[in-house]
């Protein structure tokens, strides 16, 4: 993914426009702002030397952020599952409709996200980060019609995880 040329002249302009969304994509995957900002920095450092046309940059950056963050998430998954088994009984989690999302719930959502097929996870995160169906389709080489199905299945799997945990308390 690393480019080979000089630093792009439009780097700052693209950065200021796209950074919030790139961080949002990575935060949705990781559930951690610090980790997400590290991923965003990594992605922009790679982007700095690419010749990706400015018009395609937002989608390119979002996809790169999703993949990089998912790689981080998966590499930390074994560690997380060890922590989970060592953590003992969980505190009570409020109803999923509540605005308050507990730390524990966040962790469970990320674990479920890490278990999803890669394409479903990326499509879900990109859609919830504001990319249109057409943009998600182009980014993942899907037809716009199948984006809805892919996102729906991912949401259904995550919702099941949330509900399963909520009903066990």
């Amino acid at each position, binding site marked *: *993914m690393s480019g*080979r040329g000089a*630093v792009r002249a439009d780097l700052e302009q693209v*950065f*200021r426009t796209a*950074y*919030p969304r790139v*961080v*949002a994509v990575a*935060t949705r995957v990781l559930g951690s*702002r610090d980790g*997400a900002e590290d991923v*965003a*920095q*990594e992605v*922009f*450092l790679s982007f*700095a030397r690419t010749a*990706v046309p400015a018009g*395609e940059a937002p*989608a*390119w950056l979002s*996809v*790169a952020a999703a*993949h*990089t963050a998912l*790689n981080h998430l*998966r590499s930390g998954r074994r560690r997380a599952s060890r922590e989970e088994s060592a953590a003992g009984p969980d505190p009570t989690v409020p109803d*999923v*409709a509540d605005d308050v*999302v507990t730390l524990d*719930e*966040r962790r469970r*959502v990320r674990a479920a996200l890490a278990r999803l*097929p*890669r*394409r479903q996870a*990326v499509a879900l*995160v990109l*859609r*919830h980060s504001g990319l*249109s*169906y057409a943009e998600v389709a182009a*980014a*993942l*080489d*899907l037809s716009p*019609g*199948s*984006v*809805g*199905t*892919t*996102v*729906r299945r*991912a949401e*259904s799997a*995550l*919702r099941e995880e*949330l509900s399963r945990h909520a009903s066990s308390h």
Partner: protein
Amino acid sequence: MRHPTEGTLRRLVDEPAGVADADREHVAGCPACLSGLAAAQRDAAAVSTALDTGTPPDVDAAWSRLAHAVAVDERRRAAAPAPARRWRNRLRSPVVAVVGVAALLAGGGAAAAADWLQVFRTEQIAPVSVTQADLVALPDLSAYGTAQVVEEPDVRGVADAAAAGEATGLGVPRVTDLPGGVSGDPAYQVGNRATVEFTFSAERAAEAASAAGETLPPPPAGLDGGRFRLSAGPGVAAVWTSGSGAPGLVVARVVAPTAESSGIPFATAREYLLSLPGLPEDLAAQLRSFAGDGTTLPLPVPAGLATSSVEEVDGAPATVLTSRDGSVAGVVWVTDGVVTAVAGSLDADEVLAVARGLQE
């Protein structure tokens, strides 16, 4: 009419303009679809809440951080050759030359006659750790003698798997289950067998050493003018590319490298090459540690950029390489004198899944 798909119902939640009028009208009057739409709305809302990202980041502070990182990167690049040049140097670097030659000498059999004699064949691959400093600091291969291309690989695109198989005589592996983010048909590239002949020159090596302020150990008898032929190929690669930074996938297969010698005392020459100035001791130690049966091909792995581990693919030991930033992974293994590699902007589990699912 048939009920719209669950994907269509999902799109109705947040992009109704993208749904056909007929579908919208059907859903409006269909209790089953309205129930499905409500479920899709509930799930979307719940997931949206669970994935909430909080307050927007501080863009100014982040820009300062990135600008600093880019500046540091610029200084590092200015101090080192440009990447393309570095890659060329890597190909010409004595590290790689020595790695190759040391590997072929690992077979250390009896001295051969003047005829070419195969002294090395790849049966397995083992990673050796190479730092960028090693690759940049060393003089290039021309300091030790002359390298001449005997056969060009002539890498070219072909229409499909059948054409690739015909051009190379290799079975072209098929991917049964593409990883997420990779789709469509691959482009096929083929290359013929490539052969390079290297002739060692004690005089050149001594000049290069003295220019670098080093003293060359006296070469053993027979090494001056000794010739080595390294061949690899033919090979084929199937390449999936996709736009917008989505991951690519490469599945490649190549007849494994072999080496021949014009006949010198192998073990002696191998030790000599490993003692040349400029070859870092830890790298030499790694190379010495290989079994001396002339069947292990060292694979230089940039120490700061990638990590390696060993897994199994189809009963063969396979080397898995992962870039430290997690963005790229690859796996390579050898079966019956043929090297197969799978790599892409994927994680190690994904490249292994592709590798283990390959069909002939």
